[in-house]
């Protein structure tokens, strides 16, 4: 599959379209709790929309409780959405049957943060990766072993790892196995949920490099979830900044880095530890919000240094500020 580098300019169809995706969780665990506290909803993902074009990487960046992981889980239908639409390769992911969903999952694979809990500890590497091959391609026996060995080779491991159990592998090797398993079904979209966050710096660099190489070689599209802006700027063509379940800003990585429009994006950039040691940085006060029964207006208003009355009065519209640069801020 060839991909013109200026896919957006040529107005190609996006591979994934997410529209007003919404998920609320009930914070009350029991009827009694509901009677005491009344209705308590956590707006984990609240009306998020974006497009992903073929061969592109979109980074979902945010802190704890921003809704980045839930967004990925909603897209893969690992949790049911409350509202919104997800179009993937022309199919409406949220309304297809279970059987069709299995077909979709072949094209849409996930890499999780913790490769220890996402690999089956009682299966050898061969079985961990091979199950997807049996399920989707009916590969068995020697044919499957050969294919698994090829996949291992692709992620920088070798056939000597076939018979290993996950606990016999290092963290970096386990994450490579997870990547191989995700690639086994030849997906066109990979959702990577903090795939390098639990790894050491040097191993993180190896895995990031591997993901970049694979993406280029296999023309993958990727949604890359991370809390680390340095990682996002390395992997992503576009960055979506989330806060408290809402999309704050979305745009091309270079623009987001050079001209952040949202005060939260700005604060995130300023909070990056780095080589500026003049101590002039004023860290953002307060803590990331858990969107429990959030008041109207901007979720970030309670921490925002630029807050005005209009910020908390009503719905903040998403403004278009460039070809593909959007921001939800009345001050932008």
């Amino acid at each position, binding site marked *: 599959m060839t991909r013109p580098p200026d896919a957006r300019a040529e107005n190609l169809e996006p591979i994934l379209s997410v529209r007003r995706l919404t998920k609320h969780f009930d914070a009350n665990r029991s009827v009694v709790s509901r009677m005491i506290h009344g209705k308590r909803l956590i707006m984990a993902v609240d009306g998020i929309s974006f497009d992903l074009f073929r061969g592109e990487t979109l980074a979902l960046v945010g802190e704890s409780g921003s809704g980045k992981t839930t967004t990925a889980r909603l897209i893969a239908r690992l949790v049911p959405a409350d509202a919104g639409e997800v179009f993937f390769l022309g199919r409406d992911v949220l309304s297809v049957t279970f059987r069709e969903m299995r077909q979709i999952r072949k094209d849409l694979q996930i890499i999780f943060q913790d490769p220890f809990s996402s690999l089956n500890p009682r299966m050898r590497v061969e079985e961990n990766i091979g199950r997807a091959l049996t399920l989707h391609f009916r590969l068995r026996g020697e044919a499957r072993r050969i294919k698994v060995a090829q996949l291992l080779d692709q992620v920088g491991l070798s056939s000597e790892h076939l018979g290993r159990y996950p606990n016999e592998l290092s963290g970096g090797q386990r994450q490579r196995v997870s990547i191989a398993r995700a690639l086994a079904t030849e997906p066109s979209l990979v959702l990577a949920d903090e795939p390098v966050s639990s790894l050491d710096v040097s191993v993180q660099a*190896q895995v990031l490099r591997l993901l970049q190489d694979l993406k280029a070689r296999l023309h993958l599209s990727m949604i890359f979830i991370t809390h680390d802006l340095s990682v996002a*700027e390395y992997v992503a063509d576009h960055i979506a900044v989330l806060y408290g379940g809402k999309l704050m800003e979305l745009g091309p990585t270079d623009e987001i880095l050079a001209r952040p429009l949202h005060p939260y994006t700005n604060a995130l950039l300023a909070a990056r*530890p780095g080589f500026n*040691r003049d101590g002039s940085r004023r860290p953002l006060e307060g803590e990331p919000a858990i969107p429990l029964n959030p008041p109207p207006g901007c979720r970030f208003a309670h921490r925002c240094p630029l807050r005005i009355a209009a910020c908390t009065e009503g719905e903040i519209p998403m403004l278009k500020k460039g070809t593909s640069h959007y921001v939800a801020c009345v001050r932008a």
Partner: protein
Amino acid sequence: MSNPLLRIEDLTVEFQTDTHRFCVVEGFSLSIAAGETVGLVGESGSGKTVTALAILRLIDPRAEIVAGHIWFRGEDILRKTEAEMRRIRGRKIAMIFQEPMTALNPSYTVGEQVAEVYRYQLRTSRADAKRRALEMFERVKLPSPRTMYGKYAHELSGGMRQRAMIAAALACKPDLLIADEPTTALDVSIQAQILALLQDLQTEIGMAVLFVSHNLEVVAELCKRVAVIYAGNLVEVGTVDTLFRRPAHPYTAGLLRSIPRRRQTLQPITGSIFEPHAPPPGCCFHPRCPYAEARCIEEIPGLRQVKGDGSRENAPDAHVAACHFPLGQ
């Protein structure tokens, strides 16, 4: 600077498992001056936490300090009795950890735990301890200290817990704070807050800080000097400016190249760390080193001053590296 606050000399720690005995820290030497902030950088299993814990003599019972000295204000910590150590810990040298949830006692309120430090170390009255603890809460900028005093660790957010732990650690104004990855588990914006707080308190108290971290960027921001440790061996020490601009050890250079940057292809260090019970001969980094030569396999390199470093011989801030063929020479 003739008499550093802390001088670790040839510290060697061995670890015993069911089947093997191996070195986790080997001939480690490092000095910290009063009021200085030194970063100790290394990856998982490099021995950085063991080194930090050895300073307080809190290492795992299966580990043993087999050689070396740890001079603190001219006295060897390794020769102290347990009773003497209890007066040093918390009062002279304090420590904060990566995960305050496990470091704080879940069955006492965080306030009680800070007050306990005053009760135990300074033998103050209950009321006085509480008053001082509340003061400390204010200094670490915990919102509404009186309410926080009665909270349990699980009721606080990660950032608040870390503040409570900092309050307990700094209660007696120690001369040295050992901070073991204190911001690793925190969100970016909270990490920035905690780093700023540590900097403020350090200036206020005038303590020295040994900042243990795997994150080069955090260390660059906070520290004046950095020590890089690989597989239990100190490989390079220097000021942040020289070490990060002109790394002399290939491992340090590899770590710096592992930081993702926009529009730059990552050049990760190849391979992985050796099995601890089977260290390679010669330089411990040679199997992964792109510049390794025959000599690196035969001879263990000692720490030597990097040429053209500009500082005097054996100056406390000299740039030293354990490499036969330092980069840029």
